[in-house]
């Protein structure tokens, strides 16, 4: 009889997650041409956190957020760190499946599963959940049943109305007062201004990265961009800035040397829909493994997080909070809103600005809002003459075959069109 020790449940979950993580990291390192050496520090970060369960924030208070609508600026201003809890692990999805309906969204199931396992490298001290989609809204109470406190943050479903604006401004003030009380710290004008400009600086770096993606010869892959933007969920802000700057300087060199990660015939793709969250880069990987290149995206794990800056009129705390609320509401293109023409405009804009050849729209099976918005987005793209592929996927690792055929056929059709044009 073997006398080898059996893993504890926690060790087993960690191993499962490490195995998921390492295979994505290895694919990035091994499979693509002209890998950026400056990306190694990002890969290492993911390996440290997800394969070695390294804690990044030790003693700092960690504020978990369930969606992007909780302003990180306020959290940083109170000397805490925001940790975005949206989860991309199939391991956690499977755990969450026991607690939520079969048809629930894998991202929500994985997030709930993560709490059920309680297996965090950086465990959040406080959890704030904006009332965005139905499933996230309801997930809060399930998470509470595991012994956490989840504070709901009011979020409106109508973007255009003035009532919504007022409503969310009040909600953000409430959130800020609540966190400030939890932290026993006053939100000061100086600190908030500093954090707004620091996040603004991080956003500017993102925009600089994106500039290189507009070039005819693109120096960075879409998947690497997802690695960078996803790291913003949990990395130390200063470290993230340093790593991103290193990538930028390599991109600048590449731009001069005309080094591209794709071939000239590779179709340029705008990616939209349910967010790719590490390690669920299944669809972005398939796209770039099929010789296409993601040049831009419209997702909440990337573009939507960085695209719009906070516009402050007066640098008083109240005004800053209002500006933050406006930015996190008005600029948001999440499909939870009643009408969402902004999202369509954003996709078309990205398509044009980044000289794209087509759009790929992913919806998680069970992510009803993205599934619902499929019709309007597909209709709008058709009207504009923009080729679009709609895909439904989940977190399971074994779906590759069926999806890759569709992606490849779409990419080939774009190549044909490109050739015809030329």
């Amino acid at each position, binding site marked *: 009889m073997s006398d080898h020790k*059996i893993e504890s449940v926690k060790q087993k979950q960690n191993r499962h997650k490490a195995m998921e993580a390492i*295979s994505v990291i290895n694919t990035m390192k*091994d499979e693509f041409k002209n890998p950026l050496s400056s990306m190694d520090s990002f890969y290492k970060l993911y390996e440290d956190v997800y394969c070695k369960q390294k804690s990044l924030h030790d003693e700092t208070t960690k504020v978990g957020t369930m969606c992007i609508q909780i302003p990180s600026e306020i959290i940083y201003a109170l000397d805490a760190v925001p940790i975005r809890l949206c989860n991309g692990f199939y391991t956690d999805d499977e755990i969450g499946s026991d607690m939520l309906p079969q048809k629930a969204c894998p991202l929500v199931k994985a997030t709930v599963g993560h709490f059920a396992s309680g297996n965090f490298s950086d465990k959040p001290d406080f959890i704030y959940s904006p009332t965005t989609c139905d499933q996230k809204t309801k997930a809060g109470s399930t998470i509470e049943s595991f012994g956490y406190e989840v504070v709901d943050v009011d979020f409106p479903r109508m973007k255009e109305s003035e009532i919504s604006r007022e409503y969310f401004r009040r909600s953000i003030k409430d959130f800020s007062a609540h966190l400030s009380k939890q932290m026993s710290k006053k939100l000061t004008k100086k600190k908030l201004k500093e954090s707004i400009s620091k996040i603004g600086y991080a956003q500017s770096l993102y925009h600089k990265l994106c500039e290189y993606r507009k070039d005819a010869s693109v120096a960075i892959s879409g998947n690497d961009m997802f690695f960078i933007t996803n790291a913003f969920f949990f990395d130390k802000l200063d470290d993230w800035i340093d790593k991103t700057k290193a990538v930028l300087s390599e991109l600048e060199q590449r731009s001069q040397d005309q080094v591209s990660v794709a071939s000239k015939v590779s179709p340029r793709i705008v990616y939209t829909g349910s967010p790719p969250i590490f390690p669920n880069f299944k669809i972005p990987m398939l796209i770039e493994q099929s010789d296409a290149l993601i040049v831009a995206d419209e997702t909440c794990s990337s573009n939507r997080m960085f695209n719009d800056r906070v516009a402050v009129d007066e640098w008083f705390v109240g005004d800053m909070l209002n500006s933050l609320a406006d930015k996190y509401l008005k600029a948001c293109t999440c499909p939870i809103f009643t009408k969402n023409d902004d999202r369509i405009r954003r996709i078309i804009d990205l398509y044009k600005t980044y000289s794209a050849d087509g759009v790929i729209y992913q919806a998680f099976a069970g992510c009803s809002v993205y599934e619902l918005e499929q019709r309007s987005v597909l209709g709008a793209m058709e009207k504009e003459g923009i080729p679009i592929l709609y895909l439904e996927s989940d977190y399971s690792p074994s779906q590759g075959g069926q999806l890759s055929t569709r992606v490849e056929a779409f990419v080939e059709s774009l190549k044909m069109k490109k050739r015809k044009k030329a």
Partner: protein
Amino acid sequence: MTFAGIDIGSTAIKISIVDENKQLLGHKISASGTMFYKYAHDTLKSLMDEIGIKKDDIAYTVATGYGRKIFKEADENISEITANAIGARAAAREHGVINTIINIGGQDSKAISLDEEGHVVNFAMNDRCAAGTGKFLDACAMNLEIGVDELGGRHFQSTGTPLSINSTCAVFAESEIIGLLGNEHSVPDIVCGVHYSIAKRIVKLVKRVGVKEGIYFDGGPALNEGLVNAIENELSKKIFIPQYPQITTSYGAAIIGVDSYVYASMS
């Protein structure tokens, strides 16, 4: 008086001979090769020589396994699932009560759930596919250019994260392994990943029949300690490996032979 159990599998022929007290007198394993029938006879003959018995000393013969119907001289033939259940209970009698059996054969894998009496209540088998079978291990070892018996040792040399093999198909998994090797990943990490991919599939089968205490693992791959550890980790339970994991089913068949013989002489 002796009784023979002949298990003709897709990959190997296993023969056990027991006495009237169901005590194992001897066993022999040989490759099935291309001529099941001939090899089964040859193997039986050499086992009889080893133990020092003649054809007439065998009172009853039970054939089992995928090729059982080929062995026409058998007094009885019985499915490998029943034989496995009987064999496992008997082989583990000093260890404790077996309630679940994991069997990984050359070309199939199964989980069998037993009731208190030791009867089969439920079983699950892999779908028509070699993923998660001994063949899969063979193919992996071949790609890695190591012997299949070295896999266990390599498993415990892994220091990194086990590298997932995502393809469920043995053929595609081969190309994944070749890809990993091409990118100079460590062999132990790959071996570890292979074992976990088999373990996960097996554990799914076990969950279908229900995970109970008293788990027995047999078939050739049970000799692979790395795989054993992977399955234990995936199940979060210790599993029992018999002294001769390959012959459980033929041993069970021989025991059935004793019972059938006694029953026949009673009536």
